[in-house]
């Protein structure tokens, strides 16, 4: 039983249809996003199912998950990813991250106590001219938040945590 196919029959078919018929393996990345959509993580079972759909060994699917940083095999629902790469850092991103973490009361890379969210450092997101900036990954989306202050970021995070507490997935 392929649960992924059962849950998203149309999406799976549409994804497979994008690539040449004999190149099913190309669909592995979009399928991984699909598997990650609801829970923010990709389980070993998901990998096996995607392997089935793309004709790959489960280990090969796992390798893809491991290589790319936007796929996760564990972790909280939301990831607040602050760019601290050179151009942003030149405009105060390191200080911004430090103060934001103090404000929220977490350390970088460690999920909040309610397990809803983690603040992470990431490399350049192509938002250098709007530093400090971060992206939020969760619920199958990625949204950019630019020209941020610690206050605005704190508010965004509070909103995410409210969403997580309410349990509602979009």
């Amino acid at each position: 039983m392929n649960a992924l196919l059962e849950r998203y029959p149309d999406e799976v078919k549409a994804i497979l249809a994008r690539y040449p018929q004999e190149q099913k393996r190309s669909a592995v990345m979009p399928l991984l996003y699909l598997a990650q959509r609801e829970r923010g993580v990709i389980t070993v079972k998901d990998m096996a199912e995607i392997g089935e759909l793309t004709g790959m060994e489960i280990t090969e699917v796992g390798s893809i998950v491991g290589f790319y940083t936007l796929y996760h095999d564990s972790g909280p629902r939301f990831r607040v990813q602050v760019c601290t790469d050179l151009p942003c850092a030149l405009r105060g991103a390191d200080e911004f991250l430090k103060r934001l973490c103090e404000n929220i009361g977490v350390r970088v890379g460690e999920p909040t106590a309610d397990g809803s969210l983690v603040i992470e450092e990431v490399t350049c997101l192509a938002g250098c001219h709007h530093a400090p900036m971060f992206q939020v990954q969760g619920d199958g989306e990625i949204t950019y938040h630019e020209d941020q202050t610690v206050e605005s970021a704190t508010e965004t995070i509070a909103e995410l945590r409210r969403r997580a507490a309410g349990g509602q997935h979009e």
Partner: protein
Amino acid sequence: MPVKMVNLTIDGQQIQAPEGTLVINAAMRAGIHIPVFCYHPKMEPVGMCRMCLIEVGRPVIDRTTNAPVLEADGTPKIAFAPKLETACTLPVADGLVVRTETQKVKDAHREVVELLLTSHPLDCPICDKGGECPLQNLTMGYGPGQSRFLIDDKMHLEKHVPLGELIFLDRERCIQCARCTRFQREVVDDPVIGFYQRGRSLEIVTLSEPGFDSIFSGNTTDICPVGALTTADFRFGARPWELNHAASICTHCPVGCNLTMDVRREARSSGRTVIKRIMPRQNEAVNEIWICDKGRFVHHYTENEQRLLQPLVRKDGELTAVSWDEALSLVAEKLQGVTLTTLVGGRLANEDLFNLAQLTQALAGQAVLYGEMAGGDLVQQVGLAPGSNLGEVGKGTAILVVASDLHEEAPLWWLRVRQAARRGATLIVLNGRPTRLDKDAQHVLRYAYGSEAQALANFLPGQALEDPAWSAALHAFAQAENVIIFYGSDGLGLEGTAALAQVAAHVLSGYVGRPNNGLVAVWPHGNTQGAWELGFRPTAELANTLRSSGAVYVAAADPAGDSAILAEALDEAGFVVVQELFLTETARRADVVLPVQAYTEREGSFTSGERRVQRFYPANIPALPGPRPDFVIAAQVGQRLGLALEARAASLVFQQMAQRHAAFAGLSYQRLAEVTEQWPKIDRRDLYYGGTSYQNTQGMGQTLALLPLALPPLPRLVAAANASKEGALRILPINRLYDRGALLRLSPLLAGRMAAAALWLHPTLAAAQGLVEGQRVAVELNGRTCELEVRLDENLPVEAAFLPRSVV
């Protein structure tokens, strides 16, 4: 098509190499060693470790005239590229000038080694690879004396990661060369290990169930250029330099892989010398440098403490230990004046079979081969001709595999057939159910079980079929210059395989005698073909034969263990003598049990399915006090009957054999021990190039001559009525690599991989029978009831259920 030769210069040497050759290999052939880590001559180059950097110069070409620019002295002007290039990815080209020994190159080698070592734990003193480690050797040869990397900065990673129960990974030692993952993907098409993460965090993982689920996994430990991958049985077992080596041949399938047994005295075994590991030995005509895991790990049964050590004789109903003399005399006495049946298995060596055959003949007995597959007599006439080599087969050759699952039955043939297909051979797979080989075949054809021979008969000259798949396959087959047929016993017994072999022989009759043409039988054992060569024949009437025998002489077979019917028949037979390693069901029923040596303890020769006769040698282990080689026992029985049988040495038995049997004419132990130069060069001086597989110095064997063609006329082909009683479920046996045979059961390492005692069915058939997945059913087979688990597989045909043959 003649290959174009290219002229180049390496380190001042003028070298000629076929177009397309990589510089690394051209240099190697010329005796110039360029260090490598990721490159392996059996795999596509990837150029990732950057160890093989060289300086490359190319002739300067005048753009306007397209002619080479010349120096003042008339030699071509050479422009050296500013950047070093990788010798492992660069094809030779005319006029190329390569330098491997300049300061720039030496610096690069030193620098790459230093970089590699920054992440390496340098734990050579406790590493299994120490002593045969490419990294160690190349560090000594090319590396810096000292690293500038701070030891405290070293990354610490897990050191004993089981990638399954056979292979362990030391993450710290891995140098990310990807040889292992590439082998699994490219060579054996089992990408069950892979990289996880990236950059310096790259690590090898497996998610398969069971872990590292590949029957070729052991080979990765041979080509791993560091001690990252080790086998469960050798890790922490010994240092390579403490080992003694002996050449051997695997007896567990008809391929006849060349092995090297490494032995050492062992404290854990109270100072006894034991086999520490089985390694592949290079034979490019047989197994190249690979072996399957069964061949590598199964030998542990030879050390099992249940081995028989003393002759046993039944006294007052009990098997009682006696002296050899008493036992042999009793046997000799009892064999006289009765109808004798000698029943042998395909594990015996040629020499054993020869002496047993002589004995049987002298006593006017019947020489019976135990097994359910026929056709070896035809293979003697239409088998692969001398000079054949599957490794050289490609375009222009059609390979037809019928009624066999090569991956399970003869793993190295699967590998070589698959590679032949990739080189351009036309691969046709004809079977009643899907097998692993389908994936590599251009033509996959199906038949209904029972009509195998009819299906194969379509390949007789002049046949035409409308079905497009068939017609395409027949056409491709007819176009081929060379034709090789592998036939097996998938779902078949003696009758079915006999018919199949006959048809195959007729299909091949126009091709016989030319190299790379002929019939190969996928036998269950390593020397089944040898038994045919030496006169043993299977019989469909085995139970009756046994029952009516005054004496039964069994060697290397366990009929009573396999079948209740045969067990009963044996009980009814007169005197029963059994030569065995273990107290099998058959031995338990015997009047005399004679303990034999295992193939690891003695010498002899085997005849592979390709009819290559190859010698095996005793490992340097002190012989167990009691057991004797089968041929010696047979000879000693014979001697007591006044027969001139040879017991002194296997080589002398072979001499007699060569005199008696036309196919063996001209062969001798000396000739079997001949070696010719092989490519890739595997000599253990340059472990970094080919890995730790052993060089072949003890013999590559000789292929038997074909016997004169005298084919029986084609039988009238009708679908065999092997469907069972009306309404009853039809159950067909299939062959599995890790079968449930006695020897495998006694090899603890492979226990976890044993073929399940299960009944496989198509869901539709299961539903019709009222069976569900996982259910346990009692099945009556060969007079015995066994309990099997129901497994569903929608790829199977609906007509029958399947189970591993050895469960039967």
